[in-house]
């Protein structure tokens, strides 16, 4: 459940390409799905490679490149595992070439054509059987090439770009992703101070610019596209925006400031979109999986050195894989790594509490009354007051003044005015002691949950519930244990700590009132036989949890404790416990302990309970029959109501006529003979046995 990265391993080590930037070192062809068995990589100055991925990555084919060539872009048309067609945009010094490589088994056929500018994107047409190639040039021009029957590349059509424009980003959009029939090329171009978003329709015969939007240019932006979503990461503002297609206006912006350190160069950052609303961001040595819609960090992965995301396979489901380049500066090596990822379903469930914006300092909010005129203002006043109280408490804690602390904490939470508390504090006379007080919703001050959390953290001095015997403001602790806002993080180990402290009153208080106690702790408390809080923990357990939860929790705890010794003791104690609720726990414990695992004494005591029950049931029903008979005798007919009033013996029964009627209705259920049966059908039914076997006679 959830989204995560897993299994990262190196696939291939690149030659030392120190002078090339990450994005120039290698390009990856996007496979059709994450289940693809092969991946294709173009490595500048060395090779075009095909790896088989399963069972382990293995090089299966390569094509050498001259040592001065840089691979700009690549696309693959796959016929089968052994038959592929590659189209590669190469730059060799000042020459630019479009190369078509046909691989059949081990042999390869090559045809190439020189072009007059740098190629930034190539793509086989979806229906062209690998014979039609779209090319996006660095100057904004789009070209359509066709492989002729003789195997030569021919330029069929060209759509020139605007003068002086430079393509920053290009992506080929497959059919129907944006709800239209054709393939599209989306480019982001830079014209001096302006940016142009262009959409070009690609067909097998013709290139057609369909849409262009001009916007003011920005600095340092990285784009990524998938599933009809175009994202733009602005490095200077550290924000990712979702752009609407085709209007190219910003739909939503989220901040990724916590993930990008100050002054990170543009080259160290890469962005990919594996699935809708989920982004993978590579910054220096960290890869982060981000949910765009909920603005949260789902998972992150760290490596020493620099990382550049080469390829993230788009997926409709959850599973995908990532190929990235890892540069280890110590060894001066660059390796292609592969990593599996589960990008999740993009649901709230995966994102709960995973915000990338950590609450740096927990600030208590004021709580205004809904009918206040100015809610913000009264919220501020309240927040200041909370702040002042907390400051005072911190001060008292550091001075270990338990008495003064008690004068502040509980009275404040009990709705005493802060002014009167400060006044009382300044007086030097001895403070009177207050009785222990519990939380009362009707009279107490409404608190911000973070205020409660901070008070506890001041008392325990950390994130763990560990009490300092030298500073134990018992009144405050008791009050807080009764407060429903007691934070969940302090409930872990709470009961153990209180038991260790030997303060049974506090432990009882916690077991009775403290909210959100983890079920396992309660079960453990129950199994720890030497505590005197058996009844409290048992009734707490029964009241809040369902029997299924209790049983499975017992199982967990027993496995942890590695013994079933305690179980028998607990069962015996339960049988002694005077409460109706015990049967739920008895059931749970027998379920956990199994049917046959019990000492004879326990079985005997269980048996005796059952025997007692049966006896009392028999007695009860006997008594009931007797009472019924007595009633029948006492009430020969309804008519003699008046005379009955004089008969004293019947008064007790008569006085509670209502109960008697109820009794009648029970008795009548299976005792028809005692009533006058008027209905003929009823009489008949008495004669006929309630079930009979009928035979079909032929």
């Amino acid at each position: 459940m959830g989204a995560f990265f897993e299994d990262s391993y190196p696939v291939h080590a690149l030659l030392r390409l120190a002078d090339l930037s990450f994005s120039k070192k290698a390009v990856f062809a996007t496979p059709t799905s994450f289940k693809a068995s092969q991946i294709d990589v173009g490595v500048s100055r060395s090779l075009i490679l095909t790896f088989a991925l399963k069972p382990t990555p293995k090089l299966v084919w390569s094509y050498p490149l001259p040592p001065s060539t840089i691979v700009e872009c690549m696309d693959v048309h796959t016929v089968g595992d052994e038959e592929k067609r590659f189209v590669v945009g190469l730059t060799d010094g000042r020459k630019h070439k479009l190369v078509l490589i046909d691989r059949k088994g081990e042999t390869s056929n090559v045809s190439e054509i020189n072009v007059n500018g740098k190629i930034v994107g190539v793509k086989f047409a979806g229906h062209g059987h690998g014979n039609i190639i779209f090319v996006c040039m660095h100057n904004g021009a789009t070209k359509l090439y066709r492989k002729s029957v003789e195997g030569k590349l021919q330029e069929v059509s060209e759509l020139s770009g605007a003068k002086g424009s430079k393509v920053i980003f290009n992506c080929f959009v497959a059919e129907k992703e944006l709800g239209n029939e054709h393939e599209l090329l989306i480019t982001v171009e830079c014209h001096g101070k302006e940016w142009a978003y262009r959409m070009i329709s690609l067909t097998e015969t013709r290139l057609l610019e369909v849409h262009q939007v001009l916007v003011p240019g920005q600095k340092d932006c990285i784009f990524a596209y998938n599933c009809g979503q175009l994202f733009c990461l602005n490095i200077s503002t550290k924000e990712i925006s979702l752009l609407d297609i085709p209007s190219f206006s910003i739909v939503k912006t989220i901040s990724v400031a916590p993930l990008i350190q100050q002054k990170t160069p543009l080259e160290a950052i890469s962005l990919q979109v594996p699935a809708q609303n989920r982004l993978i961001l590579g910054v220096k040595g960290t890869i982060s999986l981000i949910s765009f819609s909920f603005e949260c960090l789902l998972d992150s992965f760290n490596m020493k050195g620099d990382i550049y995301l080469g390829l993230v396979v788009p997926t409709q489901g959850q599973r995908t894989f990532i190929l990235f380049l890892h540069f280890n500066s110590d060894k001066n090596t660059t390796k292609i790594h592969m990593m599996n990822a589960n990008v999740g379903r993009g649901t709230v469930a995966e994102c709960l509490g995973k915000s990338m914006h950590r609450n740096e300092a927990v600030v208590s909010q004021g709580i205004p009354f809904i009918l206040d005129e100015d809610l913000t203002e009264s919220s501020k006043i309240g927040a200041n007051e909370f702040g002042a109280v907390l400051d005072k408490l911190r001060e008292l804690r550091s001075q270990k003044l338990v008495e003064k602390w008690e004068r502040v904490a509980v009275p404040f939470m009990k709705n005493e005015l802060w002014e009167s508390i400060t006044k009382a504090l300044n007086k030097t006379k001895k403070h009177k002691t207050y009785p222990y007080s519990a939380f009362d919703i009707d009279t107490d001050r409404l608190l911000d949950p973070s205020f409660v959390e901070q008070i506890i953290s001041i008392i325990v001095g950390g994130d763990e519930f560990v009490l300092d015997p030298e500073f134990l403001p018992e009144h405050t602790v008791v009050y807080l244990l009764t407060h429903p806002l007691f934070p969940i993080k302090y409930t872990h180990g709470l009961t153990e700590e209180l038991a260790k402290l030997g303060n049974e009153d506090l432990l009882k208080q916690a077991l009775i009132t403290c909210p959100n106690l983890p079920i396992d702790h309660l079960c453990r408390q129950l199994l720890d036989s030497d505590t005197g809080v058996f009844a409290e923990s048992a009734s707490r357990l029964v009241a809040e949890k369902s029997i299924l939860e209790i049983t499975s929790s017992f199982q967990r705890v027993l496995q942890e404790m590695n013994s079933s010794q305690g179980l028998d003791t607990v069962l015996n104690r339960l049988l002694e416990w005077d409460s109706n609720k015990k049967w739920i726990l008895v059931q749970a414990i027998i379920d956990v302990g199994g049917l046959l695992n019990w000492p004879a004494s326990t079985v005997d005591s269980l048996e005796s309970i059952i025997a007692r029950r049966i006896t009392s049931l028999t007695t009860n029903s006997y008594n009931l029959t007797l009472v019924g008979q007595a009633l029948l005798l006492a009430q020969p007919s309804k008519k003699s109501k008046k005379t009955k009033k004089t008969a004293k013996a019947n008064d007790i029964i008569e006085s509670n006529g209502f109960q008697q009627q109820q009794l009648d209705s029970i008795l009548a259920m299976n005792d028809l003979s005692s009533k006058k049966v008027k209905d003929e059908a009823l009489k008949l039914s008495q004669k006929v046995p309630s079930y009979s076997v009928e035979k079909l006679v032929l």
Partner: protein
Amino acid sequence: MTVDHVEWASRMVLGGRLPQLEGTPAFPAVFSADGKHQIVVFTHQIRVYFLATRQCVRCIDINIGLIVDMCLDPGSASQILLFSGLGGVFSVNWKEKVASPVTEVFVMSPPQGYVLASASCYGDRFVGVFQSTKKKGPSTALVQTFLKENEGETKVVVDDVTPVFSWSFDKSQVVFVTTSHEVVRVSVSGDSEMSVERNSFVYKSPVTSVAVSNDGVVALGTGAGPIQLIYVGGSDQRLLKWHIDLVKTVAFSPDNKYLLSGGLEKVLVLWHLDSDNHQFLPRLNGTIDKIHIDVHKTDCYSMLLGCSDGIHHEMLTILAVDLVSRLTVNSARPRLVPGVAHSLRRAYKKLGNHDNLYQVPIRQDYSLPAAVHPTTNQVYFPSGASIQIYDWVRQEQQSLLNAAAVLPTGKVRSETKLVDPKISLVDFSNDGSWMVTVDTVTPSPVDNLLSKSDEYHALKFWKNVDSKNDGSKWELACKIIDPHGHGNKIFTIKPAPLLKNELAFVSADDKGGVRIWRVVKNLSNSNQQTAWTLHKSSPGGIASSSAVDVCWSQDSSVVFLAHETSVTVLDGYKLTTLNHISGIADSPIRAINVLENHLLVVSQTRIASYDLIRGAFSFIMRANFPEGARNLVAIDYDSRLICVAANYYEKSTNTLAIKSKLLVFNHNNLEPVFTKNHNQGITSVLCVSGSFLFVDLDARVGMLTSSLTEYLELNEDIKPDVNQIMIKAEERAQQEIAHNNDRKTFDMNTFASAFENAHSLTLDSLFDRVVSITGR
């Protein structure tokens, strides 16, 4: 998307209910002088219905307090006179559109210690019937004549009267019943003196209604059923026996030949007085509280039918000839809490001297459930065993759906002990094709069972069978008895967000058990009914609490369960516990809702918005919410707005008044977008396609609208579609190509065919040929 300048406005859309007019013979409707219109007075509105089309043709908002009687102004056909208890007479123009509907105000100042109970108008003269205000002992009635803008003139005092009295059809006599079993007829027709005639009658049982015919015959409806007729002179008396329980109303027909009576049986009885025949009109929609025959439309009988809740009424006008309904008038009928005024007086005794009265929680839960159908926007008011489907735009009741089995006839005598099922929850799937209701039946005390305190719950799934029309017809498709096991009460049921076309509901019970219900469609046999089944369940503990709510996240991946003060996060598919959210509320949580990534938590003492991703509160506000707080919060998921109604006490003379404040919030901001103070307590808030509806204790319905709703709709239209852009670009390109192809080249051979057999052609036809070749 944030829009800076959003303007909000509020207005009232429905004008309350039909007034109760207890203890007076007054009827809340009159006919216009030509008999074509019926003018019906609601508590805050006058509505004029055109009888021929049964449509409301005019609506006049009025706010003049409690009205005790009304009549058409005999001097001017376009005015009606409304009488208030303190003696004010308001002349209201019902016909024309005027700046202020109240055109004139007179005063019939009642004598000390009396209030006006009923009045009648004769040209320039009013006759008022006053009743003494003393609470204990027999009351005194006073009949007084007033000239317009003058002090009272002649008067007659009748001592020791019961509250029952009535006018004759021609308003020439008033009849009272005294506690000493006498009928007192006061003749008011004469210009100067009023004559009084007393007749004693044989007491049978308490007199509950009275009528007097034009010729002086008096009919007494009794609590036991028989109707007593007392003829002029008092010597001749007779009994009419059919009713077996309280006769609520009796009335003579204008020709004095018939007596009409009605009561708890929901049957209108017509007694032919000469022949002793009687006729019945059974199975009316409610107990007959009042029968009225108007002077301007003597061939119609109007009736006020009381609904089972005892608060609302339905007005029915039938034709006297064939007893066919001519007009039915219903107000919106939310299930109001009875006895609001009484509970406020009690609260006053306790809290009257409180310093911060507006901070004190309301002692009684006045909120009531209501639901809005997601596509038709009609409001569903559950009440008792039925659901009223009300179209607030047309201000008409669409239909009344009986969601549980009840007696169609009126309950009399011991039958009143039969307990009707009560609908506690109504909701809809998000596409509006399914409705889900939960009702509760308690065994009747009549059966006197040991299990009498057990409750049975039924979860019912209704399919919409009328989606083409107004969508207010439903068919019961599936019924599940005790859906959460015996003894577990369902407190909340919520539809799943419509994803992947999967229909589901999640329900939660008082012990924190949660169940998901899914629809199972049997496609192999189309005749088979769609069945709803239990899909997943998560068990609860044994601690029972009414503070339970459950909700889906908007992508349905998570179900949040609030039980008492804790919130549990459950997986939306498997219902396994994911985790607990701590520190959400310090008091029982009444309602939760997910808006984007925020959890809105409404508890007894606060309303807070919790950011689920950050794990921190966006805002917390102190507020006092009753148990039904869920009804006081509405959410607009599209514009991410929350509308909250906060009721509070305000001091009034000798009692408390409930006021309220409506606030509209963004889900993550403390600063309200809009606030509105309302002069009456609010019982429910609903979201209707971008606007909020609220229902108050007067059964009035108001609306908060923002300019944003229109803006959003506008924006949807402008937004370009990739496909459209493609099509346009294609067209442009095609035109260019076509343009290039247009330049045809001509040479000698092109026209060769035109000159075939040219000698036989005229010049005109030759020209035609050439043109046809060059094209266009």
